[in-house]
Each structure stands twice: as C-alpha cells, then as structure tokens.
C-alpha cells in the first residue's frame, strides 16, 4: 500500500495536505490529487533524508492533537484541524507562533513547512510522480500541463486555455513516439 508511511502517518499527512488545498463539492483538492501518494514516493525515492522528520513529526502531531482535542489529527473536524495547523504555520524565517513549545514545536513547524512544499508539488507537479491524479491540480488553475508548444492563436491575450486538452508528460511522450519522431512539429536537428 505505502512505500514509506505507516498507515497512521499517511492518515495524518493526508489530513494536513487536505487542509492546505481543501476539497470542495465539484472542486477536488489535495486529497483527490493524491498528494500523500506523491509524498510517500518522494520519501521512498527522492528525499529519504526527510523520512525521520515525517515519522517523528506525524507522531508529535497526533500527540498534540490528542492532548488538545482528545483525538488524533486525522479524526479532528476541519475547523479544529485548521486551528491546530495555524498554530504550526510559521513565517518562512520566523518562529512558531504558538504550538506546544520547545523541541516539539520546532519539529512541527518544520513538518508543516515541508508538508506545504510537498503538497504544492503533489497537486501541481506531473502525475508521474504519484500526485496530481487525473490532473486535478492543473485543471483547477487552468494549466494545460506538458505541451509540445503553443500556436499564435493560443497565445492571444484573453485566450481560454481550458479549451486545450490537459496533457501529462507521459501522454506527450506517447503521442510523440506514435508520431514517429521527436515530437509534433520539428524535432531537434542534428544528432547526439
């Protein structure tokens, strides 16, 4: 199921990401994008050094949540989660404003900063990394994804780019190899 996370860690991290980019009726958020899946893969492959922070941080978060609200973070209501996260969110170079104090506060502040970065990547990065499932992040903001190029009509001011079918890098690659050359239009000239 998970490459890195224990189930309770995944639940806590998913709940955090879902407050960073919440889901609304008809408008998917980090949960539908699978940001936690992106984070799991990142920790298993690209960023193993962050594993300890996630492991300790998720445990601290659940402890803090338990001591304040009597339940683990993932089981809190959205409003309670927001209050708790707001106490962890620190200005990029600032101190944790509230939270539990001491070492735990430091870890939780770092955890929030890291989950924020990872959630943005897991919602707005290419789906091949495990997040942005069905390109929900790109559709949310009107970004067409990996396009070989844009033509003069598409580059007119005010053009509605939602009319361009959203494309992942994998799809671009497939279409290019089906076209039998480097890509639609001209490929690189010369060799090597």
């Amino acid at each position, binding site marked *: 199921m998970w490459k890195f996370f224990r189930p309770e860690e995944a639940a806590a991290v998913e709940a955090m990401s879902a407050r960073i980019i*919440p889901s609304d009726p008809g408008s998917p958020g980090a949960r539908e994008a699978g940001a936690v899946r992106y984070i799991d893969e990142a920790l298993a492959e690209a960023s193993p050094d*962050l594993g300890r922070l996630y492991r300790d941080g998720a445990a601290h978060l659940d402890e803090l949540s338990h001591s304040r609200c009597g339940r683990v973070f993932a089981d809190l209501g959205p409003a309670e989660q927001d209050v708790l996260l707001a106490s962890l969110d620190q200005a990029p170079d600032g101190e944790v404003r509230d939270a539990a104090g001491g070492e735990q506060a430091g870890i939780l502040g770092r955890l929030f900063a890291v989950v924020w970065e990872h959630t943005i990547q897991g919602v707005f990065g290419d789906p091949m990394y495990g997040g942005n499932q069905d390109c929900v992040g790109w559709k949310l903001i009107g970004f067409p994804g990996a*396009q070989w190029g844009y033509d003069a009509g598409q*580059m007119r001011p005010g053009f509605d780019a939602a009319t361009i079918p959203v494309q992942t890098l994998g799809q671009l690659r497939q279409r290019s190899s089906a076209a039998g050359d480097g890509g639609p239009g001209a490929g690189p000239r010369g060799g090597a």
Partner: protein
Amino acid sequence: MTERADAIVVGLGASGGIIAHQLAAAGLRVLALDKGPMHSDDEFRFKHDEIRYYSRGSLVPQLSTDPVTWRPDEGTPSRLLPWATGVLGNSEPLHLPPSVGPGGGTLHWGGASWRHRDSDFRMRSLIVERFGADALPGDSTMVDWPLRYRDLEPYYDRAEWELGVSGQAGNVGGEMHPGGNPFEESRRRGYPMPPLRRAAADDRFRAACERLGFHPFQQPAAIASTDYKSLSACQYCGFCHGYLCHVNAKQSSRITSVRAALDTGNLRLVPSARVFKVSRGGASGRVTGVSYFRPDGTVEEAHADLVILACYALENARLLLTSGINRNGEVGRHFMTHSFGWCTAVLPEYSNPFMAPLVAASVVDDLNAELVPDNDEGVLWGSVITSIPGDLQPIEAAHNLPPGQPRWGREFKAWFARNYRRLFGIHNQIPSFPSRRYYCDLDPDVRDKFGQPALRITHGWAGHDVTALRYFQNIKRRICEEMGAVEFWTERLPPPYHLSTHEVGTHRMGEDPGTSVVDLYGQSHECEGLYVVGGGQFPTLSGYNPTQTIQALAYLSADHILKG
C-alpha cells in the same frame, strides 16, 4: 594517469564553449573538462517537468555537493546560502550558481542576449562627470573598462550571427529602424532572425508603457524564431528559463559550440571532471596544467602550456585562490550582482503565463544606465524595465503570493485557481557597484566532499541598491496601474538573495597588473599561459544580462590566443 594537450579549457559554458570550438577548429588539440554531466538531446526532449528541474533543481550545482557560503559583512559568521536552502533539503535553483555540464549557464538560462551600451564601459567616468566624485561612496572600487563599445562591436556581431539571436535592430550604422531600441548603439547589421512571437500580456505592457511616454521594444533573444544553423524554431512551450530546450531553439554552447568542436576531431571532452588546482612550473611559474577529481575521488593530472579557466565568475575565483594565484590580492574582490525588484501583477484578463519563453517580451530602456533622468532620490545609474509575461509554471507561481494572502486553505485555493492564469511580472536589473566591502574568498571552515574549500561571499545590499530599487518600484507600480492590474506586489526590498546568476567582477580585467587580475584578453597578469575568462572579467556590471558580452569577450580571447 597524465594527459597532454595543446590547450586545456575548464568549463564549457558561454565562454568556454566558444574558446574550445575556436581553438579546436584552428587545429589545436584541446582537452575540455567540465564538472557536470554531459546532457543528451534524449534527456530533455521531454523536459516539461517542473518537479525535476524547479523543485529538485537537477541542472544546478546543489549546495550539498558544491557548497557556497555567504555573510552580509565581516562581523557575521558565514553559512550556506540561506535564501537557496529550501526546507526540503535541496536548493532553490534560481538563486544559485548556474547549471553545470557542457553548456554551463547556457543550459538553464532565459536567453536574454544584450550588447552593452557604450556608457556601460565608462560607468565611473560618466557618474563622476555628472554627479561629482563624491557621489560614489568612499568604499567604491568602480573603474572604467579597458575597452569601449566600438572595440567589442565586431565580436557582438559575431556572437549574434555565429550563435543565433532573434530580434529587431534599432540602429544599423546610424540609421534608426522602427520597432527596435531607439537608444541602441550603432550596429553593423541587424539580427540573423526576426523577433520571437510575444507572450500574451506583453501587448498590454507595451500599450501602458507607450501611454506613459516610454519606448518599449522587443528584447533580443538567444532563442531561434526560425530554424537557424544548429537551432530549430521555438515552439513556445513555456518550460524555458531553468529548463533545457526540447527542440534546441534556445542557444546553448552545448549545441552551438561544443558539438561543433567535437566535430573537428580535435576536442577531447571529459565530463564530471572537477578541476581543483592550476599547476605551475619552472622559474617563471608559468602554467603547466591542471589537476582534477573524477567522481570517485581519483585525482587526474593533465598538462598543457595553455590553460583557459572558463568557469562561472565564482568558481574561477575559487580555482585561482585554491591554486595560490593571487599575488596582488585582487582575486575575488569587486563582487557584483543584480537585484531584480520582482513585481508581480494580476491582470483582468487571461495572460496564460505558462506559454512562451521568458524573453518573448518587451523592454523599456528609457531609464537604463546613464539615460536615467536627474532625480531627487539619488539614482546614479539606471536599469532596464523588463516585461515577464510568460514561462511561469504553477509550483514556482505558488511560491510568489501577495503579502497577506493566505498560502493555504480555502482562500489560497480560490486565489490560485482564479489568478494563476492572470499573472504577469515586471523586473529590473539594478547593477550593484563594486566596493571594498563586497568580495569572495575561501571559507575557512566549509569544505566540499573532496576536501576543497567552499567559496565565501561577503555581500550586503548598499544604499544605492535600495535607492534604485525603490525608484524603479514606483515606476513599475505606475506601469501596473496603467495596465489595469487588479493586484500587484513586489518582492522584499532589498531582496533576501545575493546571487542572481549574474555575478561578475571577481577576476577583474585591466591594463595595470597591480590592480587587476587579467588583461583585456583575459590573460593572467601573474601566470604566463593562463587565461581566466567570463563575467569575472567585468570591471562593472551593466543593467543588461551579461551573457552576450561574455560571448563577445570569449571570441576576443580566442582571437588573441590564436594570433599568439
């Protein structure tokens, strides 16, 4: 193993690629060493990947492998570049030294391709004439260049036509051309390619600037608008600055020069070769070669009577210092960089900022360099005002929100969903002035994994930087208002970063061996047979991007070497 060559070129970026090509084409046996990997076309045909190139910075030297430290002044301990040290442990790629591997900085660059104005070569004289000698602070080390625009014009022309630049000339042999820069210096001919198609919001920028009395024109771009020599026409995919080009539209020394040099059969290229020392010998201490590390730490030596250090301005200085080539103490001094004063606006209509190259856009030169009008604020030297309508991917955009805008939760989601496709940017390039206070040396405590000392930068933003940033911030605000922006904001002034990928001055050129490191050909005053080339040669920084001047100087150096 010891290897012998006629010439060794260290670093194959904007200058090293050109010099390696010129020497190899003239029949010299050239050994080229680059600390980065050799990139192939296949590797980036599908480079449309913000995680790989932006979030994980896979093209740039990471601080974990290539440490650089900084301190604002001598009284503060240095640390790894704090503005580039992300919470995820990898480094933010836009304010680090540029990309590595054959191609160097021209792999990741945006492709802004400028000739200096003649005034840029005489900054000190012009400031002193106009404002008096007291206008510059007491710690200033500003000097004029040892050459003028007319000396470099043939080399600028050569760079444009041999490498490929698209644009609209403004002044051909004194005859003014509509659509070009009305303030342009005279050039012998136009550009080899017409201008790029401009990104959507640039029309609105132009119209606003014209209503304010400015004279916007399309900036020259080292990006092919049509197929040209080894370049193919741009596809406007929008993954440009910070990325490799999937169709080789963006001029990179990897394709314009390195490939041609390899085709001569006279170039041997060793990638992932980390040079750490310039060797000298004999009574005169002339250059005899270099030593370098293979990735596994094995030390190799290579010998030649001619060595060209063509790394980034910071790395060139580090190599001179670790090699003990610094008799007059000038190496690493006069560090200069740009501050940008990034201004971001939300426009009332879709701007689709994810399309087109960064440089498919217009520039206003009315307030650049000595053209800046007399002003009460105390701005001595101006800057370009550059429209940034394209080349903005979503993850980067999410890191630049207006002050006070929640960065998570329902409000963040709604803001980003509404406004990402309406974003637009404007920036300046305020050249910092050289000062005794701002320099690079070797960090006494920090070393890389091969045991080599890190470079330490001592730099703070000076009074003039802040003055000029504020002056131009007001102008950008007026432009944004005139454009009908519904929201706009600027980065912190002065900015948190002290690297812009436009660092220069660290091995200054000059005629006096007592006060400069190299002569105007890039030849070391101290060590016979050694050339040290690139932006490090610049006596002052211009408001323009430095690369085409670095290329012109490289052609000048190559000619000088070959004429012997």
